[in-house]
């Protein structure tokens, strides 16, 4: 361990020591013509809808790093509490850590109050944390759940503003998804209709936005029950490698059909073996 003469212990949390160094490096790197590494984002389509008995949340499953798909099947619907789930768009690490911290805080809070946590509590905790960091934490969230007051749906923006609405969309594909919602949403839908609506909204985002893709995940939250459907629908089917000879998918198989190689000659040599010794060894099967 390094030892300095007098060391003051700082309380912890974010350390801004490297900011100046990073600013210098970025200036130098761009002069040399390289580009600094990009954070992994979830250029995304996430949405939620309130229906008769609860809330349906939906998300796509693509995570991008600049122009490359970093994760083809990432999970964007995060657990907050048994009755509250949260979809996250923006920087993947930020959404992940923010939802985990709020989930822990909500668990401690509900142990302290002795009650099931409310969606409004999670909303307030999230918005206060995001406002504290002035938008530098890039997490755009769709928070939904069912508590003692019924189903609730909130959308939370990176700077800390929130909206409480019956249907919300976020992410780069939000406009495509919102178009579907604006056309077909009506209050007090049935569960199947709500699931179909969310599925179509996410599919619109997947097919019309470059940042969204792969599968559609759904989460149906009702009073006392949560259905986490992952994947609910595989919208972008990736082809399976086929073995042309057999016609069914076998990867890396080197088996050849009978008759591939023509037989030229066949010689049969019988080996004459005589039994010299025969002994029996019992196996210990205990």
């Amino acid at each position, binding site marked *: *361990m390094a030892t300095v003469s007098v*060391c003051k212990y700082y309380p*912890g949390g*974010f350390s*801004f020591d490297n900011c*100046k160094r990073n600013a210098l490096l970025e200036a130098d790197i761009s002069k040399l013509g390289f580009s600094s590494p990009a954070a992994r984002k979830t250029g995304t389509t996430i949405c939620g809808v309130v229906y008769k008995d609860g809330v349906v949340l939906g998300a796509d499953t693509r995570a991008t790093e600049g122009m490359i798909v970093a994760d083809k099947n990432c999970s964007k619907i995060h657990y907050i509490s048994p009755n509250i789930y949260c979809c996250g768009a923006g920087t993947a690490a930020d959404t992940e850590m923010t939802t985990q911290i709020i989930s822990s805080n909500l668990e401690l809070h509900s*142990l302290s109050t002795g009650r099931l946590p409310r969606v409004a509590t999670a909303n307030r905790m999230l918005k206060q944390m995001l406002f504290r960091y002035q938008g530098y934490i890039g997490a755009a969230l769709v928070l939904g759940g069912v508590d003692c007051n019924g189903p609730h749906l909130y959308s939370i923006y990176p700077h800390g503003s929130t909206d409480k609405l019956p249907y919300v969309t976020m992410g780069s594909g939000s406009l495509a998804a919102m178009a579907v919602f604006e056309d077909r949403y009506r209050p007090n839908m049935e569960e199947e209709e709500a699931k179909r609506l969310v599925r179509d909204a996410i599919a619109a985002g997947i097919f019309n936005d470059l940042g969204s893709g792969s599968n559609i995940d759904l989460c149906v939250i009702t009073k006392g029950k949560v259905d986490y459907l992952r994947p609910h629908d595989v919208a972008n089917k990736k082809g399976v490698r086929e073995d042309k000879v057999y016609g069914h998918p076998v990867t890396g198989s080197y088996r050849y059909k009978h008759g591939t190689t023509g037989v030229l000659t066949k010689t049969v040599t019988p080996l004459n073996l005589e039994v010299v010794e025969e002994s029996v060894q019992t196996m210990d099967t205990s």
Partner: protein
Amino acid sequence: MNTRGLRSQLKDSVPVTGLCPQAGPYGVQDSLRRGFSSVKNELLPSHPLELSEKNFQLNQDKMNFNTLRNIQGLHAPLKLQMEYRAARQIQRLPFLPSSNLALDTLRGSDDTIGFEDILNDPVQSEMMGDPHIMTEYKLGVL
């Protein structure tokens, strides 16, 4: 977001004495650990959030005490601040980091988790003060 200029970031609810020069073990700028020094670096924050984060706990406490004073009168924050002052004095040996459990309990942050518990935990810090020097510094003998 950055419509405010850099000058306005220097003003804060709690006056800051400036981001003082980072002196290393021999009293000179420690270039290896803290980078090159410049007057600009010492006066201006390296990140817009740096000042607000440094004073966040103080500002929160100020706000809470003000609210308490408005609701319950002057005695409430006065009594609480006395307790805070007492709790802050409960520390370990000068070179060991303290958990500040009493202070946390008074503040109510013993059942919350934030970034200060996960990132840069002082218990896991890689730097430690020299025990003899730290004790002498604390006792004022140095």
